[in-house]
């Protein structure tokens, strides 16, 4: 009954079309500040797409659309901290993949924002699973170890999904990727450092080297400028402890903001990471020595890092979960967060790792991550526990707008639901 009531209300919201001027979700168990206890019987007031107030038993203003959550859990919309959403459609065919460049002049200058496809089927599925934000990171370029620049997405409907462009500079280091640097990760780190040196010189207008001695072209040199002045984090995908230690040293030597992505063995240097304030975007499913770079992978990586004071977020970057990473960017994120809870991370800390954690890591906390007044009103009303597989979203709001939970899959589900065996006409006529 409760679920039906919410669905009816959500459908009503959708039917009215445009963004509600004023929306009130009442009788919610609101995790307004992930990490803190929920507000029971909360009213969440939304105006012009932003959170206006959250409080127990607040009266909805006159004229507001009211959604009764009937005591259900309401959280901020979830965020996946490293995906290829918007730049990947069908992984098996090159024409439907824009996440990497194999040749050409672009290295650090490669920027995924120009390829983003708001109508991607993957985005619709992620949104229906309660994901309202995601980082889209490039996975490789001809200028390795740099992979290029990622973007922050908001998974709203209507074509405009770019939250913030150039949110991070991605680099990939490790045994399986060292080939492009000549076959050694030592060369990867040297090339990385040299690129930063050349970019700094380029930015300072120095022309110390003859052009033919420079390894970096002007596009890449320009792209690295915000990394050097600390405005853009350098997101280094690395699994092995030795590479994570190199990343820590790089951050100190160049005074960079570094984010570790992957970090299967990050737990080994949890104290150093906390001290250096280097956050980790980790895969909560990673517990196998998939390659020799992640012999130390273990399911309590998240719990150990959190306890040490490292800011964590989740993404499904392990090689074994390539389907989870993008095709299940919302559902698997929730399952992974639950798995981290099963392995020692607090439930509240896990919710942070899929909301405020990534918001802080990628510099989006000014407008996303909590239900504090003034934040974008990204909200999910949950059926059950958002971090267990028995739960699901009953309603999803992005910047105050109720978004459709329809996907190609839900249309197929409705078309092929049991009970049509006696139909005289083929299923193509059913819509």
């Amino acid at each position, binding site marked *: 009954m409760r679920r039906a009531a919410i669905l009816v209300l959500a459908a009503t919201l959708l039917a009215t079309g445009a963004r509600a001027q004023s929306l009130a979700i009442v009788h919610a168990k609101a995790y307004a500040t992930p990490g803190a206890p929920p507000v029971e019987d909360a009213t969440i007031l939304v105006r012009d797409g932003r959170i206006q107030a959250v409080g127990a038993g607040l009266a909805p203003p006159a004229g507001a659309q009211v959604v009764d959550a009937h005591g259900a859990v309401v959280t901020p919309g979830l965020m996946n901290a490293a995906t290829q959403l918007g730049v990947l459609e069908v992984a*098996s065919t090159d024409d439907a993949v824009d996440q990497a460049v194999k040749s050409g002049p672009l290295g650090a200058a490669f920027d995924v924002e120009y390829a983003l496809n708001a109508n991607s089927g993957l985005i619709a599925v992620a949104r229906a699973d309660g994901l309202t934000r995601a980082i889209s990171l490039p996975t490789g370029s001809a200028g390795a170890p740099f992979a290029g620049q990622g973007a922050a997405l908001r998974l709203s409907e209507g074509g405009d999904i770019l939250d913030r462009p150039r949110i991070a500079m991605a680099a990939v280091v490790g045994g399986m990727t060292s080939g492009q640097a000549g076959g050694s990760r030592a060369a990867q780190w040297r090339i990385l450092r040299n690129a930063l040196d050349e970019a700094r010189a380029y930015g300072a207008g120095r022309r110390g080297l003859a052009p033919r001695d420079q390894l970096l072209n002007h596009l890449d040199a320009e792209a690295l400028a915000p990394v050097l002045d600390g405005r853009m984090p350098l997101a280094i995908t690395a699994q092995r402890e030795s590479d994570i230690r190199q990343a820590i040293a790089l951050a100190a030597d160049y005074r960079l903001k570094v984010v570790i992505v992957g970090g299967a063995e990050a737990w*080994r240097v949890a104290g150093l990471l906390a001290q250096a304030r280097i956050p980790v975007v980790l895969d909560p499913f990673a*517990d196998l*020595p998939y390659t020799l770079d992640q012999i130390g992978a273990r399911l309590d990586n998240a719990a150990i890092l959190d306890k040490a004071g490292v800011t964590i977020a989740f993404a499904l970057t392990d*090689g*074994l*979960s390539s389907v989870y990473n993008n*095709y299940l960017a919302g559902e698997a994120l929730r399952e992974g967060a639950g798995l981290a809870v099963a392995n020692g991370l607090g439930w509240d800390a896990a919710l942070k790792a899929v909301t405020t954690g990534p918001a802080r890591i990628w510099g989006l906390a000014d407008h996303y991550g909590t239900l504090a007044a003034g934040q974008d009103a990204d909200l999910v009303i949950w059926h059950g526990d958002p971090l267990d597989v028995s739960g699901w979203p009953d309603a999803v709001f992005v910047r105050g707008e109720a978004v459709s939970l329809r996907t190609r*899959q839900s249309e197929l589900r409705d078309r092929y639901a049991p009970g049509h065996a006696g139909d005289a006409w083929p299923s193509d006529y059913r819509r």
Partner: protein
Amino acid sequence: MRMVSRPLACAALALAALLGACASAAPPAPAASAAREPLPYKLDPYPSTYKPLPRVDTLIVGAVLLDGAGRRLDGADLLLKDGKVVAVGPNLARPAGVAVIDAHGRWVTPGVVDIHSHDGDFAMPMTANDLQTLDVSEISDPNDANVWAEHSVSPQDPDFSRALAGGVTTLQVLPGSDPLFGGRSVVLKDVPANTVQAMKFPGAPYGLKMACGENPKGTFGAKGRFPNSRMGEMAGYREAWLKARDYKAKWDKYERDGGDPPARDLKMDTLAGVLDGDIRVHMHCYKAEEMAQVIDLSHEMGYRVTAFHHAVEAYKIAPLLRREGICAVVWADWWGFKMEALDAIRENAAFLDAQGVCVTLHSDSPMVGQRLTVEAGKAMAAGRRAGLDIPPERAIEWVTLNPARGLGLDGQIGSLEPGKDADVVIWSGDPFSVYSKADQVFIDGALVFDRSDPARRPVSDFELGQPVLEGRP
């Protein structure tokens, strides 16, 4: 010479009290014929040497018990004796000398059966070398029915102990899906061992992996080889089955009339085994129309398809699969990563189950293979969301009895009924929840995994002496 191994194989089977399985591997006794021994192509020259690990009779008391055969018993006891399930029910008598495990507040299920694993032949860690020479697939010919997955299996793959910690007690290791005929599968007990033979499920029928769709035509077409189209794939199957029928006819004639035995052909051995009904066909197929073509193909050539694996569009042809008695082996939620996976829906398992099709959740990945009950939980939730009432005692069959049926072992494993093998999992809570873990796992009555006892948690040779695994805070 070739006959020598037969009595040994059957002796091993007899030791494990599996006379039925041994008998089923042998052809009916010929009335008056020169060839009285089983035909050489039907023998298993790599017989199981599995022996149950040391065990004590055990009474598990007070659990929420899902028996795998459709029953849920709250506060039930389960008695395991001599490696078998002896009794299930409330307040069982406690025989002298029996170990008692208090399972109040915990859940008990049959051991999980993973019908589609690559553990051991996709062994961790992967290296750059494996990118070209992966042990999971022979891709030198579209017909690789001559290869046997067990010859690739590394028993020290850390995947096995992870799966065990997720409650898996039996798994079928399949070759990959690049060729049309990928080769023979092997069914293993998830027990730590140094040889594959010591893991081999005694008497389990062999499977043949076949594959439809994008993988075979992609693998071979990209090399300019046959097949490069789906119609080529069908032609490839048909030509091979025609040859196999001729091959089988020669052996049948030999068995009937004697004379010189036909020349052995390893590919044809396996296909003839399918035509004999001894080897079960496990067919990788995503799309509805391909499954329907393969069903007609099986009728044309005179064999049975046991299960369609991955089967993302099975929900589109549920009545056909029910009529044919073919199981659908599916993921809970994987979709989209290739064109033939675009139409996967999360309600696939629930819709099929509701229409009377035998449904199994599978892993195909060592990551998923650690949490098949959670996969079933996801599929159950999707069904509930679509309005289907699927109780836990039903959903557990998707990862226990149904896969056991697919392996032809449902008389022996897959449910906690008296007389069946004592493959049992005690879960910390609801096995479909992401928060629950397998606390204890029994195989043939032996406690092979105990989360609370480091001495009962196997560690692979590879993970021994690794500095990076030490020093946990």
